[in-house]
């Protein structure tokens, strides 16, 4: 019987991440179904617009604050979160399945000695229990999971749960100044790839494969991506060839993505690639070979040469945007 749902809100550079809004909304909905309380915690220094978490149905957020907490330290953040969860006596703890969430959630599950379900794509309440769906084998199969510990932790895959305003409330923000922090394990420098969206967080992804023939031909993929406000992705073949960085690789030894729109250009659709992107809401495939497996998962396909189709597509979108 769950009494309290606690949501870990993630900030980077003083701003709440979109994936945390998704967790806030889902968390408040779960609390309602479980007839439980809900509150949120955020760790950082100066953080913008914390009271806005109210619109996602969460009316209380505690900010654990210290200037040393402005950037991420797994040792400091973990200690503070673990202690806060014990103090707050929360039963259900939710985090976004991000690089930070995947550090903090396991450490918390060791501290609480409890069940942890990672990368959930569905969470339902059945007979007062949470039933989680989690993809495995990069999405080639799904598991339906249940925990049997008094407390449980779930991380939610970004871009799967919808984000939207469900209330007009302003949340109560409680600021707790932290005196000393454990910085034995700390990020000393954060390097952002300038102007780049990450494939796991993007609403639209334009991905290129071997059909593009050479690294320099990705210019048109980047142009199309920037026109659509999209992230650029890549198949394993072109990453292994050194044409694109590994951070862009989509598929079983890369990232599993589920954007609203996935445009696959010159990608034939190896099983490992399909696994990583088939849960995208809409898929467009552009490939010379009309029998390529990518067309079996595509909503819309164009059988044609990328070198002809992509410039035409860029022109058409510009015309439409004009």
């Amino acid at each position, binding site marked *: 019987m769950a009494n309290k749902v606690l949501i870990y809100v993630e900030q980077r550079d003083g701003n709440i991440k979109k994936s945390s809004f998704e967790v806030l909304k889902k968390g408040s909905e779960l609390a309602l179904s479980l007839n439980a309380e809900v509150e949120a915690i955020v760790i950082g220094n100066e953080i913008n617009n914390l009271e806005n978490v109210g619109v996602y149905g969460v009316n209380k957020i505690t900010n654990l604050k210290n200037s040393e907490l402005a950037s991420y330290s797994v040792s400091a953040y973990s200690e503070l979160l673990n202690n806060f969860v014990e103090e707050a006596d929360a039963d259900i703890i939710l985090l976004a399945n*991000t690089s930070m969430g995947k550090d903090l959630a*396991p450490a918390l599950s060791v501290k609480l*000695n409890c069940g942890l379900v990672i990368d959930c794509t569905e969470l339902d309440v059945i007979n007062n229990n949470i039933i989680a769906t989690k993809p495995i084998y990069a999405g080639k199969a799904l598991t*339906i999971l249940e925990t049997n510990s008094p407390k449980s932790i779930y991380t939610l895959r970004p871009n799967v749960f919808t984000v939207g305003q469900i209330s007009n409330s302003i949340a109560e923000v409680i600021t707790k100044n932290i005196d000393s922090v454990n910085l034995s394990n700390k*990020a*000393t420098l954060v390097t952002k790839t300038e102007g780049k969206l990450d494939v796991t967080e993007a609403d639209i992804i334009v991905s290129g494969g071997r059909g593009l023939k050479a690294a320099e031909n990705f210019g048109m993929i980047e142009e199309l991506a920037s026109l659509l406000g999209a992230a650029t992705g890549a198949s394993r073949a072109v990453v292994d060839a050194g044409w694109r960085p590994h951070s862009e690789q989509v598929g*079983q030894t890369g990232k*599993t993505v589920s954007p609203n729109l996935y445009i696959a250009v010159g990608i034939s659709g190896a099983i490992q690639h399909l696994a990583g992107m088939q849960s995208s809401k809409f898929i467009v495939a552009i490939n010379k070979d*009309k029998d390529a497996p990518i067309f079996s998962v595509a909503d819309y396909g*164009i059988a044609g040469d990328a070198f002809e189709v992509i410039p035409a597509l860029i022109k058409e979108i510009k015309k439409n945007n004009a």
Partner: protein
Amino acid sequence: MKIVVCVNHVPDTATRINISSDQKTLDSNGVTYILNPYDEYAIEEALKTKESIGGEIVAISLGKEANKETLRKVLALGVDNAVLLKTDEILDSLSVAKSLANEIKAQEADLVFMGKQSVDFDNSIMGQLVAALLKFNIVSTAISFNLDGNKITAEREIEGGKETIETTIPAVITAQKGLNEPRYASLKGIMAAKKKNIEEKEITSTNNFVNVLEMKKPIAKPAGKIVGVDSSAVPELVRLLKEEAKVI
């Protein structure tokens, strides 16, 4: 330096997945198993570390008798010793982590490498769990690693960039693709591995907190439509994306 690498024996990524009749487990008939791809980077980093500062590398794998095939491959790459924590049971991540942590403690290791994720259950938390159990430092999803005395400087991949982490041993490092270029086994290594002993041990923790109620295949996407051929199809594609899908 005593270094441990944790390795997993997983279905080849080219495998088609079928579910057993119990609807809770993978049907392993006809499935080829391989060394978990991310573990290759972990092994390479362990070997490089040993080459620069000396020491001993022990590989640990938890699972069935068949995991010995993977341990044998790892020995061929130059790992000194191998331990199989043998079980036929299906364990949740925390149970696996407890058994691994106990063995790492018994080995008195200072540095642990493993892949950032196992490509079967895709949990990507084993290194973090083991680190928390042992009270070791953690660098997850590492794309560079440098050890100077007991000081670690490493880079880890984050959304839209990377961050530099400074910490100390004892530590667990989980390897991301890009950390290094894994080597191939030499013929000499393969021959030597055949003679090496793989130690078998009983596991210590089998108390699952997470249970599988069902395993199933995702609902297949209905086949879409070919909008057309070549650039003449582009205006219709843009119209569909705008008006039907409403995604641009």
